[in-house]
């Protein structure tokens, strides 16, 4: 079942970003042609081409995550550019919606280093 929430996305922003990144990589490796990348993410080259040109909405979450892995980008960043939130994050928010809504609003204008302080780190002990 398709669970991704569609929010507003800047038209072409996702496609532009993917195309620019793919073309950068293609200067180093011909495997990053439209056909090559499409084959690896299991879509038709014509479909990928339309996505890159913004002629069709961004693909599914699973396909976006495959694109992210291939072009070496963060999956959450690409999902955000596509105006989506991952199924995993939705599940997290749905468990405690009020708490997370409040937390996100509180943090929205905080600098990165302040937000990073909330990230759970692996604890080091005595050894």
């Amino acid at each position, binding site marked *: 079942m398709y669970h991704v929430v569609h929010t507003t996305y800047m038209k072409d922003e996702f496609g532009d970003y993917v195309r620019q990144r793919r073309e*950068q990589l293609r200067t180093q490796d011909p495997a990053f042609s439209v056909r090559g990348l499409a084959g690896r993410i299991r879509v038709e080259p014509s479909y990928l081409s339309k996505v890159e040109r913004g002629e069709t909405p961004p693909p599914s979450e699973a396909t976006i995550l495959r694109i992210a892995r291939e072009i*070496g980008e963060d999956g959450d960043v690409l999902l955000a550019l596509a105006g989506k939130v991952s199924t995993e994050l939705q599940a997290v928010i749905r468990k405690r919606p009020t708490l997370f809504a409040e937390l996100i609003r509180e943090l929205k204008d905080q600098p990165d280093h302040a937000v990073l302080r909330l990230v*759970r780190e*692996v*604890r*080091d*002990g005595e*050894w």
Partner: protein
Amino acid sequence: MIELKQDALLFSFPEMHQKARLGIEFQRTLRIPDDDRDYPLPPGLGRFPLRHVDDFGREVPELWLQHGGVMLPMYQSEALWLNFESSRGGYPFAIKIAAGKTNAITGESWKEKLDRRPQDYVVAPEQPWLDGYCVERGVIRQFVAMPLGSGYSAEEQITGEAEHGGLQILVYPMKAEAFERYFRRRERALGDACRYASESVQGAALDMGLAPGGRMRQEIYDDPYKPADWDLEHGSRCFVHIANSLVWRGITGQPPPTVPATAREYTDAGLPWFEYYGDDAEVVGGSKVLAQLKSVLKLGEARKDTPLPENDSVEPGKIIALRKGLAKNQVREGCF
């Protein structure tokens, strides 16, 4: 800082450089035969599950909580390799790896500073992975799991004691100014098969140590940078505890991964092995201390023990060559 993300450790140093991010994952693999032949690289069979030890405070030993860090489950019939993934910009890191606080490159006891002669660390991304103890130039003995206290681990063979177990990892990033100096030009160019466990859980020892298994062809590359390029003020370290897979469910409530295929099953299925070529990169010599270690098979024979019920020699038929600067699709992944 170190985060646990999707069963991998993510070391990042955002205060130094945005690109200073290194992922270390622990790949499951089959145990190569311990028969004194040199084998190519076995496949990666997926990541070991990784969990914070703090989340299972009531179930794990007090010592694990004292060490902090993470834990993973391992069967005695499997092996482990470390995969180093730095960001696409190729930010360099010096990485010290020890098992039971015995350095995997030199066999020396744990210390936090970096030694160049002999080199007691690996450098990522030059070193894409590490599969075991460096016993000779170009040869390692595979990291295999044995119950801590059984006398097989490198730690026990060297120190005579089963005190630490697990894996210890310490990561130093390159200084930001050195990174900019080395990589500015490049940056501009780039722009910005399975069987279910049937063994009995009863009586299984919890804590596992890493012991030297079969021999494998793997080079440890010389540090191509200067000692002053490493930022020794900003190291991050992590203790990775190894739990016997047979008690993993008892600790976490989650099933452990399935038992991996044996080397014979994998090879008979026509699945690939791998060779990595680092081109003209300098290679460090092996450790005399580690070369003296007895493999699990040899030590078992000396003790009239049978620690490896399945240890058939195999003839890897299909070998895939991987070269330095792995391109897309040059992955070391197998499936069974």
